[in-house]
């Protein structure tokens, strides 16, 4: 279980997070929605420890993530996570399979090369890519294929928790639908806890068990996805309907 307690983070005078409280139960899929620049990515990076909160706590199964000080503890902590980055963030200098098997080729999870490659090819197959792609370089792939490779890399070491940073941004609607479905399937079959940030409502409906809306540096609304459409919160209504009129300023 992941829990954020009153998390604050400012960059200079820009107060991005102003007391975020959020709970994600084990094995559930939480989707955080919110406009551009509302701190969705920062929230996610706080959980991973890529960004240190100014105040407040991030707890993973009751333990403060900031308490993982030594290298070995950090390593063990991060080994529980997989993350799909917005642009894929694939390493251009490595082939597709070396990207997917990155964690399996070094560090505490190191496996023999053949075994790591076999796992990589298997994960590529799971995300719908042929074994031939394994020896290509990321630059030779289309945007949708890069997303799939990113997804394969995120699940390569069987993580308990998977983060998805805007998984459908930059994809056409059909490809977005395919990726959404893939994410849902994988999360369910692995029994993983998922945390997704997006502003794509089709993703929300496809992926989420629970939804949280981030606005003004705090969680403005949170609840099961089934209750989202009936919620009366004007901010949430405006976001779902994508209307320019409403309490959220259109120029930010």
């Amino acid at each position, binding site marked *: 279980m992941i829990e954020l307690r009153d998390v604050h983070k400012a960059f200079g005078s820009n107060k991005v997070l102003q007391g975020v409280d959020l709970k994600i139960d084990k094995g559930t899929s939480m989707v955080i929605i919110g406009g551009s620049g509302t701190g969705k990515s920062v929230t996610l*990076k706080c959980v*991973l420890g*890529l960004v240190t909160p100014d105040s407040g706590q991030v707890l993973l199964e009751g333990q403060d993530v900031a308490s993982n000080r030594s*290298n070995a503890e*950090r*390593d063990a902590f*991060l*080994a529980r*996570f*997989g*993350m799909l*980055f*917005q*642009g894929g*963030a*694939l*390493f*251009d200098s490595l082939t597709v399979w070396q990207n997917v098997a*990155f*964690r399996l080729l*070094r*560090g*505490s*999870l190191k496996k023999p090369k053949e075994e790591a490659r076999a796992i990589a090819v298997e994960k590529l197959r799971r995300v719908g890519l042929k074994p031939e792609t394994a020896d290509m370089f990321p630059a030779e792939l289309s945007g949708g294929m890069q997303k799939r490779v990113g997804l394969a*890399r995120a699940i390569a070491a069987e993580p308990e928790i998977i983060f998805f940073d805007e998984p459908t941004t930059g994809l056409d609607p059909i490809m977005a639908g395919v990726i959404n479905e893939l994410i849902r399937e994988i999360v369910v079959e692995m029994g993983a806890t998922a945390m997704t940030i997006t502003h794509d409502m089709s993703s929300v409906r496809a992926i989420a068990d629970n939804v949280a809306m981030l606005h003004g540096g705090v969680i403005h609304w949170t609840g099961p996805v089934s209750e989202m459409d009936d919620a009366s919160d004007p901010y949430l209504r405006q976001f779902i309907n994508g209307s320019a009129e409403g309490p959220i300023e259109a120029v930010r």
Partner: protein
Amino acid sequence: MNPLSPVAAVGRSTLALLAAIGRVTLYTGATLSHLVRPPFYFREFLNQLMVIGYFSLPVVGLTTLFTGGALALQIYAGGARFNVEAVVPQIVAIGIVRELGPVLTGLMVAGRVSSAIAAEIGTMKVTEQIDALVTLSTNPMKYLTVPRVVAATIALPLLAAVGNVIGILGGYLVSVLRLDFNGATYIRNTVEFLEPSDIISGLVKAAVFGFIVALMGCFHGMASGRGAQGVGRATTNAVVSASILILASNFILTGVFFTE
């Protein structure tokens, strides 16, 4: 206009300079501390040795060849004023081995390598590849910075040694083909005149320059701002700062080695 604003501007630049020195110092310290603690990425190190060392050979070779040739012409013309044209081999040798070989190698590699490192790491930062490394339990300092810094520190003395030989060859070719020196005498004069300390001091300089080149590339790449402009600025800063630090440290090292 506030009459004190020129003073404020001086203060601001001074503070910015001091802050930059502080950041570079901390980064250097972090690099050195990661250098001695496992894990080590040996394959990355070999890759970088290839990229930084081997692929710089043509640039270094051409630079020192022409410089050795020009040096021979200059010394011959200058020496003629005192009727000491015969000193060409000795002065070319000492000029190349002590000073021009290492410095030109350092500067050329600064242009070729620290820009490439800054652009690569800067792009990795902008496209979240650095964050991806961290989430994959890999420390970017260990995986990116340490292999590059170690590879450059080892590669530069080797490059400078090759540059020394080619630079002396440039002087030899010009002297023998244009200035009617005897080839065998030229080589004997060169070999007999050079002291081991001339060569070693030059190679030690080159190692320091290698460290500077890779460190500046990595530092500015990691500090890169967002977007194409941020990466472009990081690249420029890397080359400029590496070049200036090379020339400054060359002055200091020369003082250390050669003042009695």
